[in-house]
């Protein structure tokens, strides 16, 4: 009977070890997933900012074209960029 109890105790310890291993895996998994999802969120917001900047630039350029109908503005609109544009391009 002593040997049986000893072997069952070994099984109990093994269950404890596996159980805490699983808990550890869950913890690591949570940390990894949450850190990954945070970086996704930040990159998403950067992308949103970038496209927002492009949209603003287009609208401004369009308005400027409409207001002045100047050929220089048209050239700048299609090929060049002003100071503000170079700032938004950095985004």
């Amino acid at each position, binding site marked *: 009977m002593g040997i*049986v109890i000893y072997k069952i*105790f070994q099984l109990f310890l093994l269950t404890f070890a596996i159980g805490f291993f*699983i808990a*550890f895996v869950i913890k690591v*998994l*949570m940390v990894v*997933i*949450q850190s990954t999802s945070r970086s996704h969120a930040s990159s998403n917001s950067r992308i949103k900012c970038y496209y927002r900047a492009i949209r603003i630039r287009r609208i401004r350029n369009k308005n400027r074209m409409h207001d002045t109908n100047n050929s220089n503005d048209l050239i700048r609109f299609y090929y060049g960029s002003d100071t503000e544009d170079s700032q938004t391009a950095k985004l």
Partner: protein
Amino acid sequence: METNNFLNLFQGVATLVHSNTEIMVARIGLIFLGLLLIYLGKKGVLEPLLMIPMGLGMASINAAILFMPDGSQGNLFVDPMITNPAQLMNILQIDWLQPIYTFTFSNGLIACFVFMGIGVLLDVGFLLQRPFVSMFLALCGELGTFATIPIAMAFGLSIRDSASIAMVGGADGPMVLFTSLNLSKDLFVPITVVAYLYLGLTYGGYPYLIKLMVPKRLRAIKMDPPKKAMKPITSDHKLAFAVIICVILCLLFPVAGPLFFSLFMGVAIRESGLTHVIEFIGGPLLYGSTFFLGLLLGILCEAHLILNPAVLPLLLLGIVALLLSGIGGLLGGYIMYFITGKKFNPVIGIAAVSCVPTTAKVAQKCVSEANPKSIILPIALGANICGVITTAIIAGIYITLIPLLFK
């Protein structure tokens, strides 16, 4: 002569008269036990979903014994002892429940279906928020699953039978069925019937154990919200958890792979938002499987099959296993109470006995009686769900290692 003709006309009575006294008493006793189960199921003392088909099956099978062409006694429901393929093919065309028994019960498929249904009902978010606390409590709540083995061996059971009956301490019906099918082919019917009978009693019995072991002052402890706000657990997290843990556990214990797969498949389906599949698995599949499980367990309680001297100790060992698991869970709760500087409600420990969600509800009920403002259900559910996973791990360990360690 006239008596003989009368008996030939009503073979159920004839077989009763021609049986030896033991079988006759057992058949009559089982008929009345079946009727009692139906009554208790209807009254809500035991789970009616299982007890009504099981009780009617038990009563009917012990009444419907007839003389077979070879002169032996048998029935037209099911013959679980057939192993010869030719005989099996023959009997599949005669016994009406044989196809369900052969193709779903004897290979553990029905247990896996029930497990898949349980998986669909589980919200693993509670476990993911506190993995270590939940796991510690769940491991403590398995005390009966281990401690019952030497007790059962002292009653003269083999190590395989002892491990199977000890699984009742895990408080998970499908797990008991799966383990006993693998380890204890001769006793799997009475072991599973005992498991399901006692699991129904946890809702009524555990509150007394809680009141006995935990004074009202401690039951009333209000759990403070965590200092650091809990990060939300999304369905992506839960799905990733289910997939990774399933693969790891299948890698460790391939023998219990079907169980792990079924449970985590249910969780994965739930978290993937497959609405129609969730409705199917959580509804018709789960309830249909539970119905047929109860029906087959009742049908298998035929006097010739379960008249075994080892059956009586099983009745005692089943309740011992559940009692020890409850005590272990509450002791785990006490350990957490001291570790956390007396801020942890020890009643949560009872929820570690993985009878989802009954024990978690029992814990909350007992705590609410002592202090209506104390809400422990989220932590209790974490321990509860972890208990299911722990019981599956123990089933894997028993099926894999017991035949190796105890040759």
